[in-house]
């Protein structure tokens, strides 16, 4: 018996409202593919994706399925499987807006929200066309007299709070604490999000806080609004210690996503098969 209310993958997908700002974890930190399929089935519209700091198949699928209005990211790519074709098509044909960023800026904007301060300074960036195209970023003179660089100019970035974050993790304990291992960026995302939902491979009969080692790798339940079981919930992406990326499926997707028609065909199959259990 667990001491929290277990919900379903479908319940989580329903929490993703049209036009919301949705946190997207990178390919190495637990991609919630089972929920992504349900979001696509729900025909959710106008999503604004905030990637920390990039997305692969999840973002590309959501874009190709017409769920996305805007994306803020440092990259969209299928990694070893090539460029992200639906993303490329959407940008080249102005179907979505993009806020091109860089990894540390995406972290810093959430860190500002974690600390509840209005902005965060970050070095670098100046002189790039990223800066020129971001009217939400600004530059100040370093007000502290503590830099070896004379009259230093430094970029400031606004605090960003997400409406909702969804990620997939290996385990939850009986009290709804979630194991995130060393993927601490998931904690950053969670701290900066109004709502947090997690799918897990398994729920284990223990409390992670009974072990100092496990507690250090845990996102406490106080940041978590709902947990669902979803075995293979990251497939075809990988999950550390559980399964590797499915190379065949990724190659198949990369090929199909090249054109909208073949992507649509692929998605019909992908949605109809039941790859995830414990819905």
């Amino acid at each position, binding site marked *: 018996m667990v001491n929290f209310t277990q919900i379903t993958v479908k319940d989580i997908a329903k929490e993703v409202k049209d036009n919301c700002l949705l946190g997207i974890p990178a390919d190495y930190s637990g991609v919630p593919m089972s929920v992504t399929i349900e979001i696509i089935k729900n025909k959710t519209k106008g999503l604004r994706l905030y990637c920390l700091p*990039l997305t692969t198949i999840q973002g590309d699928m959501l874009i190709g399925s017409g769920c996305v209005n805007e994306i803020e990211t440092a990259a969209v790519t299928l990694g070893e*499987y090539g460029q992200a074709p639906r993303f490329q098509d959407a940008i080249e044909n102005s179907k979505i807006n993009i806020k091109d960023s*860089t990894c540390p800026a995406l972290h810093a904007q959430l*860190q500002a929200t974690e600390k509840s301060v209005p902005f965060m300074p970050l*070095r670098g960036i100046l002189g790039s*066309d990223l800066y020129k195209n971001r009217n939400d970023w600004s530059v100040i003179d370093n007000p502290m007299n503590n830099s070896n660089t004379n009259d230093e100019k430094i970029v400031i970035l606004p605090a960003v709070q997400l409406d909702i974050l969804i990620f997939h993790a290996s385990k939850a304990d009986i009290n709804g604490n979630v194991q995130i291992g060393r993927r601490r960026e998931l904690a950053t995302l969670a701290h900066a999000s109004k709502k947090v939902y997690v799918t897990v491979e398994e729920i284990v009969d223990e409390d992670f806080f009974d072990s100092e080692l496990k507690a250090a790798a845990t996102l406490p339940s106080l940041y978590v609004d709902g947990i669902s079981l979803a075995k293979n919930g990251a497939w075809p992406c990988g999950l550390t210690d559980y399964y590797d990326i499915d*190379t065949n499926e990724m190659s198949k997707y990369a090929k199909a996503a090249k054109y909208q028609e073949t992507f649509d065909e692929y998605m019909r199959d992908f949605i109809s098969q039941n790859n995830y259990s414990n819905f």
Partner: protein
Amino acid sequence: MTEIFQSEIIISEISNLLKDDKHVAIGAASPIPGSAALLAQEERKNTNLKLQVTILHSQKFNNFTDGSRELFDASAQGRIDTFFLGGVQIDGEANINLVGTGRYPKLDKRFSGSFGSALMYFVVPKIILFREEHTPRTLVKKVDFISAPGISPPNIYRPGGPKYLITNKALFSFNKKKKSFKIEKINPEFTLDEVIKSTGFEFKTNKNLKYFTMPSQKRIDILRNLIAPKVLNFYPQFAKKLWFN
């Protein structure tokens, strides 16, 4: 002597550029730099100058525990000596473009995005630009979009920046004061004239121009026997194509 692949020669050349480093980090989609760093680490294993290698896309070779921001924080603190950046386009002033070609934002051809380049290029002392394809479309006079600039004015904090550019045809060094590249080594399969023709920007020639050094049999053995199986773990497609087909 066994046949040596082009990629192995480049891995070997990159490995030579890491000789005084203490910590090399490898970012996304960088199998050749990753192989080079692991090779340098293996060759220095029994010396006093150990090399720390952090490969972000690996479980075992990722030394960070504070999430993906730690690479950027550690770099800003000066804890990383060398990092690699690529580019859809690289120009003669070492500006790099990872975003796409054409007029931003509605580009003719969109690529993945700038990743961490807009900070890493400023703070890591030795940035090695790596782009295998060496043609007038990759090495251009002026990039269409600046993901990160090659040089900065004095009122910008910038301890780091470009030091080398390596392609399948040549190795260049970058001179910050002269704002230009100088050719240092050339792949013996190409002439200098061919390199000039395939480079969209002007670069300084070199009286002491050398050829790429062929890796020794010993180095090739280390690479194939010890490094290749490691690379297979985190860049499986690359390793299979080169070593395990």
